[in-house]
């Protein structure tokens, strides 16, 4: 009787627990995209998406399964609505490699939207950057008010948003930050399977950092749970993009394989993943014949329009049982069928280039060139520049010239810098005519800093972080209106309103400028010498103010005079 009662109790509790589990469902999808680049390089992009149907903001959560607890608690405790952190080494060469799937600026970039309930956003920002610095072993604690800005037009929320009060947004870049194995290891630890199963086994540091471009990012944002959007789910995306150079990694040969790139092959999917796929971009470049041959032959071929281009992908589904029938491991091999020629270089619709000009250590000029290569469509671009306070920008020298004529921006937001407190922020909305080059120049003056404010290697120079270009680029091929959530590839991070254009965020090169330096070995000498000059004035004036003139008898002469008289006597000359 008692046993039956206990059994009944357990049965009642069981579905209740299962019911709770059903309400908090989480799912992991992992994808790897291999895209060959011109000149034989290869870009590999990993994306791990964990989606969790729970509302982190309301603090009901106590049991974390796939979603990492460190990030979940961070989001709940600090009132974070969206978080985007990227650590990058190298620069994506848009002109040589084409439009990037998801670009990040060199160094560390962190931008965060806070919830409207947060009262002191700056305090929350400081705490957040310190906590992330600990989680990712990166020097994000150097983010302070001198490199944080609040953009007004760029960096709109990528997830669900109720209103966009830009005072809740903070953006900071540390261009000097270096990415290394220490940053990769905690990033891998956030993955549900770690680096033990699934696609993450390929992430070995010795091969990943032997590359031209390495970028790892974490994106957290709230999304609609379903089409009716009545409830909120949280999405964590971890992306890692790496570009392997055919000369340094490939030993000059242009044939690639998973083993050659990562020195590992895939053996199974992550057991916790609901989807685990490898995509290889086999789009024919000149639409005549195929360029690449992939082995083993793909199970299916998927066609999609990505960034305005029609692309074909060979798909390997690691969860399908037929994949590992023939061999225990999957080693995707790519062979070029015919040599590439330079006519197949991609022409990205929007690309930009930035450089410093001028000579000497007093003044300089920052020039940005923005190219719109679309043959007949003009579109606007938002340019965000953050310049540190020690390069004093003169906004009256800002000139924007397109095709030889002046181009006035339709929106300009300029926040001048305050010494040692805040950097310059310049945001402009510029219309780019079709098939044109726009040159934006602004002059600056270099400041002399206090000797303690220089880095230990002052003659290396100071970095200016990349400027950000955000645009809705009209696509050359119209895109189908497809279900963005189900789309497997990276276009789903940026919401797009219609199929005729796609969102692109580009970063320009970071700049390195030298500042005049004082002599670092001289603090004591300088203090002594300057105080001597002040003392000379004080001494002269003290004498003149406190002493009076007196008549004085001529003295008989001291020792020198007597000695001189002795010598004169010897010479036979009259004495002094």
């Amino acid at each position: 009787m008692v046993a039956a009662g206990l059994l009944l109790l357990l049965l009642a509790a069981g579905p209740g627990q299962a019911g709770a589990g059903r309400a908090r469902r989480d799912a992991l999808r992992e994808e790897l995209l291999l895209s060959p680049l011109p000149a034989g390089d290869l870009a590999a992009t990993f994306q791990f998406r964990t989606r969790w149907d729970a509302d982190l903001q309301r603090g009901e959560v106590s049991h974390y399964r796939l979603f990492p607890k460190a990030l979940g608690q961070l989001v709940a405790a600090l009132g974070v609505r969206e978080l985007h952190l990227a650590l990058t080494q190298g620069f994506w060469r848009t002109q040589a490699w084409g439009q990037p799937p998801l670009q990040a600026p060199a160094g560390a970039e962190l931008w965060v939207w806070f919830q409207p309930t947060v009262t002191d956003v700056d305090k929350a920002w400081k705490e957040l950057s310190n906590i992330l610095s600990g989680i990712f072993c990166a020097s994000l604690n150097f983010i302070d008010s001198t490199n944080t800005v609040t953009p007004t037009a760029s960096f709109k929320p990528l997830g669900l948003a109720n209103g966009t009060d830009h005072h809740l947004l903070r953006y900071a870049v540390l261009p000097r930050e270096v990415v290394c194995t220490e940053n990769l290891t905690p990033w891998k630890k956030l993955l549900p399977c770690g680096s033990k199963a699934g696609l993450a086994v390929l992430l070995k540091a010795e091969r990943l950092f032997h590359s031209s471009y390495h970028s790892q990012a974490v994106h957290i944002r709230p999304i609609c749970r379903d089409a009716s959007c009545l409830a909120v789910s949280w999405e964590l995306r971890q992306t890692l993009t790496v570009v392997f150079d055919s000369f340094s990694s490939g030993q000059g040969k242009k044939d690639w394989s998973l083993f050659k790139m990562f020195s590992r092959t895939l053996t199974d999917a992550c057991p916790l993943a609901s989807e685990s796929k490898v995509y290889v971009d086999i789009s024919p470049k000149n639409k005549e014949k195929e360029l690449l041959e992939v082995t083993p032959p793909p199970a299916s071929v998927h066609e999609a329009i990505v960034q305005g281009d029609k692309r074909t992908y060979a798909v390997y589904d690691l969860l399908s049982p037929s994949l590992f029938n023939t061999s225990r491991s999957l080693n995707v091999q790519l062979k070029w069928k015919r040599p590439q020629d330079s006519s197949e270089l991609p022409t990205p619709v929007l690309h930009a280039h930035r450089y410093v000009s001028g000579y000497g250590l007093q003044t300089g000029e920052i020039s940005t060139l923005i190219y719109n290569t679309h043959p007949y469509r003009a579109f606007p671009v938002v340019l965000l520049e953050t310049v540190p306070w020690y390069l004093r920008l003169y906004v009256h020298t800002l000139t924007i010239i397109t095709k030889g004529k002046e181009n006035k921006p339709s929106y300009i937001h300029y926040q001048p810098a305050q010494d040692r407190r805040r950097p310059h922020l310049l945001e402009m909305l510029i219309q780019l005519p079709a098939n044109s080059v726009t040159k934006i120049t602004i002059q600056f003056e270099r400041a002399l800093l206090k000797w303690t404010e220089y880095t230990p290697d002052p003659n290396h120079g100071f970095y200016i972080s990349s400027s950000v270009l955000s645009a809705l680029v009209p696509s050359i091929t119209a895109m189908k209106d497809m279900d963005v959530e189900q789309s497997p590839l990276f276009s789903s991070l940026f919401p797009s309103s219609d199929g005729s254009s796609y969102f692109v965020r580009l970063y320009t090169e970071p700049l390195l400028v030298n500042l005049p330096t004082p002599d670092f070995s001289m603090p004591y000498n300088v203090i002594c010498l300057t105080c001597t000059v002040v003392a000379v004035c004080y001494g002269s004036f003290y004498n003149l103010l406190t002493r009076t003139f007196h008549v004085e008898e001529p003295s008989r002469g001291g020792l020198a005079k007597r000695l001189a008289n002795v010598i004169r006597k010897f010479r036979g000359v009259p004495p002094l």
Partner: protein
Amino acid sequence: MAAPLVLVVLVAVTVRAALYRSSLAAFISERVEVASPLNAWKRVVEGLALLDLGVSPYSGAIFHETPLMIYLFHFLIEYAELVFMITDVLTAVALYLAIQDFNKAVFKKQKLLIELDKYAPDVAELIQTPMEMHYIPLKVALFYLLHPYTVMSCVAKSTCAINNTVIAFFILATIKGSALLSAVFLALATYQSLYPLTLFAPALLYLLQRQFIPIKLKSKSFWLYTMQYAALYLCSLVVIICLSFFLLNSWDFIPSVYGFILSVPDLTPNIGLFWYFFAEMFEHFSLFFVCVFQINVFFYTIPLAIKLKEHPVFFLFVQMAIISIFKSYPTVGDIALYMAFLPVWSHLYRFLRNIFILSCVLIVCSLLFPVLWHLWIYAGSANSNFYYAITLTFNIGQILLVSDYFYAFLRREYYLTHGLHLTGQDGTEAMLVLK
């Protein structure tokens, strides 16, 4: 005397106009010796551009001019060159008229002292005659208008020229004896650059002398007049500051202008002593030394007032020199103003001890400033110590020049009362020492 003055003015205007049209104008505008963060023309243009963009010019760290300057140049920006040439001419004319009146006062006082037998019998050669004093005002105007420092300041369109004009009008008003105008112009000068506050003492002493009020601490009329003058000065200052508030409807200009002058956050190199000192200062002592250096400008006033209470115009000269040397962002325009007074003391020439070497030091340093700047900033073969050394030498030269003139002045005063030929107790020639 008007014709030679007009001629000098024409020559000066021609020189400036010629330089404006030449390629040297851009080069001179960039020189750090001529344009400091407080008075560079580039920053005035930047401030007006920020105002056009809808941003307060004081929200950044670029613009440190007073709101009245914004108001002035908002309307006159197209005629900037003309404005600066006119300000230079006005300064020269004001100094001319002031020195003319001063000479008359000096001559009258001298005559009175001779009649009262205050002078020793053998000092005839030391007495100033109207003949030699006739050309001094013209020389003063000439010195100011054609001084290379003034010309460079004007060509660079540094707002130091406007500060100099206000101070020149203050001097004219003081010497003419008008307490109200003197207080108003002094308030305007203080509002512009804070340091002319110290010129309150010499102006007060001159006005008291002119009113024949004896300078005794127990005298009631002395305190009454001092209170009146101080009240006029403070009221004008308050009115000007309130007017500035209503221009942009904020008090932001006070930390941007006066906070900037006093706390010296910008370490752009200039001809002064502050920049390298604070670039190499240990953080812990920074506040202490800022206070010491700022007090250094103000604390010579009381001792000088006690020593030179009979000679307020010389006191004014020494005080202006001290301001130009020790202010936080000096430029050559400030130096040109006090150097314009040197012809007034040309009768002291025989008592100057080191004038040759000091003028050589000043000329050589002025020539070396651009050379060593180029070597540090553009060629990269020298470092900041070279430029700093020239700064030190130049400032020592100026300090010794002023103290030399002070010594000569005091010595002449001694000779006037004690006679030129000094004999000792045994009748032989004796020396004069400062003890």
